[in-house]
């Protein structure tokens, strides 16, 4: 089995994977990083979104064996250095952007990518960007509010389109 080394959440980490092992499986089973969730088998739900070399990807759609030398960031590495919630995580808590919590890691990772490329997204841009992430609990309202707040925008000013 190929041995690969990745920089995961700032630490060099090695593991052996089969050629068919998906990144999501390698993170969860080999490395015990179970914050990355698997909610479907068709790359539709987005619960498994992580960042690979700085870009958001669905970790169920890439083979781990292809990622030797890659940098991978997961939900476990998102909190501030002192362990407190980062701005996006805190906004999700403040604005009730999660209920059961299962889609939440993917949502937070997607939100981080969105705010990196578009620091002040409109509500419509946020809804459009979340096309690849399914939440069954919140009706997305709390999530949209959280991302608006994390971007420094005024949440109560969101108006129905």
């Amino acid at each position: 089995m190929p041995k690969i080394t990745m920089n995961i959440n700032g630490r060099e980490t090695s593991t052996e994977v089969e050629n068919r092992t998906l990144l999501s499986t390698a993170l969860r089973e080999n490395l015990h990083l179970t914050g990355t969730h698997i909610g479907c088998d068709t790359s539709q739900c987005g619960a498994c979104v992580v960042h690979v070399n700085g870009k958001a990807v669905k970790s169920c759609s890439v083979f781990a064996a292809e990622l030797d030398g890659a940098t991978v960031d997961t939900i476990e590495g998102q909190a501030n250095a002192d362990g407190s919630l980062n701005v996006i995580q805190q906004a999700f808590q403040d604005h009730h952007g999660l209920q059961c919590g299962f889609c939440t890691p993917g949502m937070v990772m997607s939100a981080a990518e969105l705010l990196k490329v578009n620091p002040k997204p409109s509500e419509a841009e946020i809804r459009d960007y979340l096309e690849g992430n399914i939440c069954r609990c919140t009706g997305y309202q709390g999530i949209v509010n959280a991302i608006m707040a994390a971007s420094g925008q005024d949440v109560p000013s969101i108006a129905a389109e």
Partner: protein
Amino acid sequence: MPDGGIGAPTKRREDTRFLTGRGKYTDDFTPQNTSYCAFARSQVANGKINSVDMSAAAEMPGVLATFTGEDFVETGGNPAGWAIVSRDGEPMKEPKRPVLAHGKVRHVGDAYAAVVAETLEQALDAVEAIEADIEELDAVTDMASAVANAGSLVHDEIETNTCFDWGWIEDNRAATDDAIKAAPHVTTLELVNNRLVPNALEPRASIGEYDPGTGDYKLTTTSQNPHLSRLLIAAFVLGIPENKLTVYAPDVGGGFGSKIYHYSEEALVLAAAKKLGRPVKWTATRTESFLADAHGRDHVTKIELATETDGTFIAFRTETMANVGAYLSNFATVTPTFLHGTLMAGNYTVPNVYVNVKAVFTNTAPVDAYRGAGRPEATYSLERVIDKCARELGMDPVEIRRKNFIKKDQYPYASAAGLEYDSGDYDALMDGLEKTADLAGFETRRAESAKNGKLRGLGINAYIEACGIAPSNLVGILGARVGLYDAATVRVNPTGNISVMVGAHSHGQGHETAFPQIVADMLGVDPLSVDIVHGDTSKIPFGMGTYGSRSLAVCGSAVFRATEKIILKATAIAAHMLEDKPENIEFKDGVFTIKGTNKNVGFGDVALKAYIPHDYPIEDLEPGLEETAFYDPANFTYPSGAYASEVEVDPETGKVTICSMVALDDFGVVVNPMIVTGQVQGGLAQGIGQALLENSVYDENGQLLSGSLMDYAMPRADDLPNLVVDHSHATRCTHNPIGSKGCGEAGAIGSPPTIVNAVVDALVRGGHDVDHIDMPVSPSRVWAAMNK
């Protein structure tokens, strides 16, 4: 009083672990030496199992054990939780639901064999090597064919594929028939309540463990209701002594009803763990969730509304066929009957109601309770036929509802469908809706839409539901095979902090935050000093889990009663400490004081004293400060609401866009308004999903066409508008100590008729002759309705 008691929008403490990837869901556990289970599932909807040859599979690398239906022939079956009696007095037909199918497979996805191997991949490979000779038979998937075609049977011993033919209330039948015959106006509507797949984001998963040293079993599973699973496995399915089985439901990634029930996979991993003496884990794929989780809704209904010419309601009469699928899931029989028929008077003073429900077996996945469970089906039928009636009589949809609303001075109100509503104020909700949704401004917005070539419609809706299903003595008479109370233990620790063990289970509802608010409010302590223990049958009292918006109204009331007992006991301890009689002690804001003096002792000192009783009068006062309450409600609770939605229909394509969605609800006393708002928004999204997008479709051979998230349209963020929620128009529940009614199902009940009413309104205002469009009101259906 510390901050964060009843009514505070406290942020959820459980969020921290979920936001940092430290939640622990069932699939996140991998006990040492875990083996992996995979199932062979039928690819045909109806088939005779001629043989299942596991010999090749058993020889595959890593395979540890194989199972077929033959291994469970002598085992018990998974029973229905509620017995229904037909109109003619016959008991319902109740076929055995085995752990694995033998003899026949009855729906696509019906599991007939299982393999356990060292790795999941090996288990999956071995399933591919199973040689099964399954002879495909004709399948029945639609209910009319199932009832009519006695030649194609789901269960050979049930000749008409009918589980029961139920009437409610049978004594009302003749009067209702007569009233409809004599009425000056009768509106008739036939409609389909579309079949849905719950699709909690976390797929079901189960881990079975067995300790040969002690004979103890442990099941870690994705359950809304761990004690129910333990009871069913112990008493009916595997016969494991209840005291030797722990069922543990850790963090659960959503349920919406689909995780209430005991499923066969749970029994199989336990049986396999016993056989192998090592942990056995199964995690569903999403495909398996589509095929084998209980689906929801699936009614075909004819409803008639008889009125005076001024719109005064005279009678409702319905005939419904309810699909139960291939086997009876645990609550498949109560959902279309007592959770549906009893709500068929709605919010209205109608003298005659009669409901007939035929439950039908088909070669499809079992159907059971899904968010709202029967209440959405009742509300949809009523509120659609009322809209059609208003149009026929030339009345405003708000006016016809107001004309027939039960008025706030009529409570308690005995409905013609057999319930006694305890409180409500439907006119106040409608007043609030007119303002919040700016109904008066609709024409202006409609004109604006018309300028852009769009047809704008306004839909309104009123609903009532029955939550916190109860009381046990009544449901027992009606056929329930379980009690419907809940339980809580409040354990005050010696250092003054508090552990509360509850029978309810949280899978997104925020119990870890909301329940402590009740205890903190009553005891005058910091909510953060109160922790909730739930989901583990080895730690919690026997409770009934979470479904039907019962957590706060029923289990919260148990928490309240147990905390009252704590106060009583603590008062006695404080009296001892203060050298006075308990009746002279008053308790306020966490301090026990001798009335009329400043002599007092704090709650923390009393807690410590409870566990260091060196000077106790032990004949009169027991040590310790821990109390349990079982709370059995006196009645259901009756949340109600008024919703409005505006939609735009594109006449070129039939596409419906929701412009606004406003929900006003009466949930009684709200403990945490932030959580309640989130619950309503989530329910709205599921209701809007049902109305516009979601549909579970089988072809005539019983193949599931909508079998993945690529084929089944789950609502995404840009399918939904901003969801406006207001629960300030509250009337207190009169019979539970908190005054709460329950909020989890409301949005899913109120929104489907609101949306469909709005779409029909848009088309009618646009000059189209349209009475009704079945859900989901997809572009093709809307376009077809406009161009028929």
